[in-house]
């Protein structure tokens, strides 16, 4: 087993652990913290079912963002939709045999790689071109875009540059999952691509990428508008009920 393979295998285990544990901790924190008041932004759904639909529109269609700004919506949509396709496309590295639908989306996943980079470019351009967005941008916002762009570009380079040994790569990926390590092809672009993905997983729970779990916990979007018909009381606030008229 080469030192390279061992390094990358350990790197991925570490990154996955940070990703999963970090995210789980954050989600636990969100779930555990009570919301003392009903604060859904109206017109809000009056049933649970309505909330599920609202959340689905928010997560799948970026409904609020669409209301706010069509350019951001367009670039964000391109980026996120493409990212989802690309991620699904990558599933084939982790399954044997490959599920039919994963096989079917392979060609789309390829275009998605380009679309993703276009979406990122649009979002990034706004950080320079729109004065207001420039003002609120921190170095980490640029770095995050750079990270995604580098992952996307290195991925495209793998596809269209020198052909990678996909069979060996898949063996490595499956080996990671089965705790039966297989050699990793020592191709520089591939190594860069993988290292960046590991980095992304590791920073996820400490960065603004927390918007992904955050949106589901946002009280302005996930609450039912039923304040008059059902008494909503946070645990810590229940103490206030003591001794009153």
């Amino acid at each position, binding site marked *: 087993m080469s030192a390279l393979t061992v390094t990358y295998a350990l790197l991925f285990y570490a990154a996955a652990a940070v990703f999963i544990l970090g995210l789980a901790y954050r989600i636990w924190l969100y779930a555990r*913290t009570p919301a*003392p008041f009903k604060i859904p932004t109206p017109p809000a759904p009056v049933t649970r079912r309505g909330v599920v639909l609202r959340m689905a529109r928010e997560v799948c269609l970026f409904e*609020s963002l669409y209301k706010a700004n069509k350019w951001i919506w367009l670039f964000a949509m391109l980026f996120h939709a493409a990212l989802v396709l690309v991620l699904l496309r990558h599933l084939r590295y982790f399954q044997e045999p490959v599920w039919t639908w994963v096989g079917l989306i392979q060609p789309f996943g390829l275009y998605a790689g380009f679309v993703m980079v276009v979406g990122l470019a649009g979002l990034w351009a706004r950080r320079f071109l729109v004065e207001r967005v420039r003002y*609120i941008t921190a170095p980490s916002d640029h770095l995050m875009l750079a990270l995604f762009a580098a992952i996307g570009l290195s991925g495209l380079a793998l596809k269209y540059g020198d052909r990678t040994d996909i069979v060996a790569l898949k063996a490595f990926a499956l080996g990671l999952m089965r705790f039966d390590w297989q050699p990793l092809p020592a191709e520089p672009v591939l190594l860069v691509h993988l290292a960046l993905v590991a980095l992304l997983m590791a920073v996820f729970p400490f960065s*603004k990428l927390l918007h992904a779990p955050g949106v589901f916990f946002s*009280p302005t979007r996930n609450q039912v508008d039923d304040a008059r018909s059902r008494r909503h009381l946070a645990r810590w606030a229940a103490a206030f009920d003591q001794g009153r*008229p």
Partner: protein
Amino acid sequence: MAAPTFTIPELKDDLAIPAIAAGAMAHSRPFVAKPEHQEPLGFPGELVEGWHDKAIAKMGDLLGKSRALRVFLDSCVKCGACTDKCHYFLGTGDPKNMPVARQDLMRQVYRRHFTLAGRFFPSLVGAKDLTREVLDDWYSYFHQCSQCRRCAVFCPYGIDTAEISMAGREIMDHIGMGQKYSNEIIGKVHKFGNNLGLQEKALRATLESLEDDMEEATGVRVRIPVNEKGAEVLLVTPSADFFASPHIEGLMGYAKVFHQAGIRWTVSSYASEAANFALFVGSYEQMHKIALRIRQAALDLGVKRIVFGECGHAWRVAYSFLNTLAGPWDFLDPAYPAPQHICEVTYDLIQKGVLAFDKSKNDDKVVTFHDSCNVARGSRMGEEPGGQFRIPREIIKACCNHFVDMRADTIGEKTYCCGGGGGLLTDDLMELRVKGAMPRMQALKEVVTGRGVTHMAAICAICKSQFSKVLPEYGMDMDMIVSVHQLVSNAIRIEPAKTTATA
């Protein structure tokens, strides 16, 4: 009043997004509360020793109590969608009035003290210590947010800057840096039952003279009862309704509605205030204490229903929070929602054919409607989502022949705040109030010139006071602002009371 020392924004044909003008409003800060305003609320009288650590500890406390705060501070991606949505940014160009930048004032400190990234790489993620300079920024810019929640409508994660500014003010209260205007008023409610410090005797005298006025005008004695045990309805209304125009005309409207419907009602001198300014300073404890006065009054008077008068944030507290703060309302008549808005009451009576109107009484007016932000984005009316937009308009249309809406992106859920909400309706913030009113004034001007609008109706005491003040600054008449129930009062047909009046 001295002439303003600032330039009043010009109303253009379109609402342009201003170029950013860093520091343009850094000088705007309301008077700091004195010990006599702070201490009765249990807050330290002045900035305490070791305020930094106490502020951070309070922040930690709030993070554990409010999911909204935690999620909102983590989730912002700096997409910029909210940057042009705040009326204070549009009116001032100060970049710290962009909602995300306002949140960042707190987020930078949160990152520094409560996140790994901020602890180890502060400059990378824009984390900062809570220095005296940052604290001053907090005081200045958390008091340039009317907590109108317009930004929250547009944010892809529903991040509500109002929650942040409330938390900011709560933290500052706890280290002795409260705002005089809000805290003084909260103290008055605790002591007298209303924001004005009006006592029972004065209240009775005022209301009696109102009854006389109405009798003179209509020939019918319409009562405004005080502390009447056994009344069916307890009306809780902003105390402005007792003394100032156009609020008082609204109160006459409610009185006539109850009179004509034969509903026995009363106001309470103990809970003679619908407003709950504790909302603005983010204090659960103070809000709870004020809300309990209503529970107490309802129990003492033995009423069956609670109805709120026209007040924006009061209706938010009533609709969204009252059940939480002072419920359950199991001693009230379950046939009606608890509490109800006066507009719901009037609307239902119109639907049932109980009220009749002579619309021509309002023919001198072309009316538009300002959706008060706290009603629009913090509550509901009726059974259906969006009832808070529809019901007041239906009432206006039932008593006026001429109604026109303002531009679609300035009404309903997207309404612009009047510029004076959230505890900012104070003379020491006049520049902010005038500038923050610009987007609303611009939309109003459009329908004034384009559609001949003469009056703007509102259902919020703060809005009404604010507009009376700022309309003249924009070259419009202060009498343009009217209460919705003032229009009702003008047009409603009333008859002498039936002797055995029941609901």
